[in-house]
């Protein structure tokens, strides 16, 4: 199980307002799939234009990145810079 954290905006839009979730899966792809089974529609949103922080390390375009049991996985708005 990974500890998934959604922003309030994502949570309100897709997850009944719940920001924290225990989700099975050993990669970001698996977590998104499991979340989409609980909250249909969230998978598409979390697959695009979103950055993922795994244990504090921010990943761009995360998909196959491995996730350890107990890892903190946060989905946040995509980041660009100047």
């Amino acid at each position, binding site marked *: 199980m990974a500890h998934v954290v959604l922003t309030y905006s994502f949570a*309100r839009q897709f997850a009944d307002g719940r920001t924290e979730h225990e989700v099975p899966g050993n990669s970001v792809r698996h977590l998104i799939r499991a979340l989409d089974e609980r909250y249909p529609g969230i998978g598409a949103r979390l697959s695009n234009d979103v950055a993922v922080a795994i244990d504090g390390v921010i990943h761009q375009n995360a998909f196959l990145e491995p996730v350890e049991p107990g890892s903190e996985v946060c989905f946040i708005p995509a980041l660009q810079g*100047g």
Partner: protein
Amino acid sequence: MSGQRYKWIGTRPNRPDGAHKVTGRARFGADFNMPGQLVGKVLRSPHAHALIKSIDTSKAAALPGVKAVVTSGDFPEQPDQIVPAGEMQVNLRDVTRNVMAREKALYDGHAVAAVAATTAEIAAEALALIEVEYEVLPHVIDVAAAMRDGAPILHDHLRTEGLTPPSNKPTNIAKRLEFAKGDIAAGFARAEVVIERDYTTAPVHQGYIEPHATLASAAEDGQIQLWSTTQGHFQVRGFCSRLLNIETSQLRVTATEIGGGFGGKTVVYLEPVAIRLSQKAGKPVKMVMSRDEVFRASGPTSGGTIKVRIGATRDGRIVAADCTVALQSGAFPGSPVGPACMCSFACYDIDNIKVVGFDVVSNRPKVAAYRAPGAPIAAWAVESTIDLVAEALHMDPIELRLKNAAKKGTKTHYGPTFNVIGLVETLQAAKNSAHYKSSLAPGRARGVAAGFWFNVGGDSSAAAHVGEDGTVTVISGNPDIGGSRASLALMAAETLGVPYEKVRPVIPDTSSIGFNFVTGGSRVTFATGLAVVNAVRDMIEQLKARAAKIWEVEPDAVIWEDGYAKPSSSNVGKFEPLSLAQLASQAGKTGGPINGHAQLNAQGAGPGFGVHIVDLAVDRDTGIVTIERYTAVQDVGTAIHPAYVEGQLQGGVAQGVGWALNEEYIYDAKGRLQNAGFLDYRMPVASDLPMIETVLVEVPNPSHPYGVRGVGEVPIVPPMAAIGNAIARATGVRMIDLPMSPPRLSAALDAVPRKLAAE
């Protein structure tokens, strides 16, 4: 400091492109020409908001010397959805309308048509012959006005994303965001000191000295070559291929040398237009914006309103903080309100936080990225309020920040828990700096502020080739804006164990290296640097294999050390080390050319923090602020080329001083920009600034072999608040609106009795 010792990393050699740039040999966007090229020019809307009822180009097209005319009808309609273009997620419906207005002109300067002609004079004459019938609509410029009920609506289809329940009401608010942690009400209930203020910032332009310029050559067989001054030629390819339905393999883009970008050259304006004109005319088309066009039709970053409230206990512990940020995005949605919200309180370990953001359209040019997009706006408000809390608690402003500083293990309000970060070390370095320890000269006051930026990674490709003489070419695909050629060459030299001078970094066109994401997000030295290191490591494996063949031993019996292949132990046999040049000279006999390649999606860009200290004086009669001393302290991970890292810090401060003290767009009652030039849009010049001092703190990023963190964006985050805090201490007047220009500061000082202000 990192404590690691490198041979080349951390040295300060001249940049490989330096001689070309100081002798005028380097070729920037407007320096490229082709035989028979035409001059392209754009007709721009004189109205801030107007329906385009008709465009008649017949007279322009009939003018001798005019070879092509385009309007929005020459660009395919695009879907209203977010799609990847050159790895950027964009709404192509909006992008194509920004490149060329379709149903409406949405800002003064919005492109409505373009021509290509044999001379600039004929092109200008042709523009005057284009007849556009407008129906002028009410307009709205400022973000607060655009959010009000009854404001002129820019896009009838726009609805606010992120509302629960969803709203079906036409609006200028494109998005609502919310981030939170803890219990904000309980936190403020514990607070013994609560400070609340409302702030504003003005939109500011990136102010790159080189205007947008491009040259397009479309051949009859469909192949297209394009030269562009850009921060990302792969993004130019991506945007143009999407907007014009061209296969990416048909479009070859070369990034010219670039005279500044700062985020403003990560999008396209002229490039699709030049390609379409070239396709229609059958000749190359060159387009160069005037400075007036740069101001009216490109960039800037958002202006906004920010309400901040911070609560602390008397011992200096911040227990609650909230803020509401509304940023104008210009004519189409897409302000950096997300990063603004996330950066707002990122410097602090606070249990209870709530941040709400709004993305708001108005009749201004669509905003583009500008160094740490959104972060400086939030920091202006938050760091000013932190200073007020320090004043209320009678605490040293650095001590207050140290007491509440984020560190490894701090859970941010936007979700992630920080890994290794260097804010505490940076605050300590600021506190111990010669500047902060110095006494203030009479008539001067001191301000301090901190700042945060994520830094990003992303896709990069690199190759390393060994020439027959053992010198090395390192090829990567990011335009060099801040000295990245030097940084990449230093990392290649360090990895390979050869002198820096033996490594030549090259930035080819989009057909000659794999994909590279933009030069932006402070990513190149980190992400493309990682690709270069991996490409060199790939090459080293081949060099070891070639040595093994020559010595007739197993490849794992060979090590690479200080630029030589050596036996891994005496058991392997007695062999003289083989140099890179020796191995290269025998490459043909041992398997052919020796090249290394790497491609990756770099993860784990280390966040950056900065702390700035400024001493300044205020002329109470004129409101003129003189920056007397300025020090930027920053965690830079590892300074690969310290001089260019210092240059990034100094450049960020210089732009921040302009943002703080002078820069703003001035519109007339009809929504027309009145100061579209450097004479009236006042950016700092050398005589406005002291020598900016820097302190480089090195807390290595564990996700990079040399500890690299991005450095280019953090330094523009703290200056506005640092200067505002110093002005408050100098005058007793707390400024809440940017810029703190002489007229505005003078008026604020006049509004307060001098004796009271002095108290």
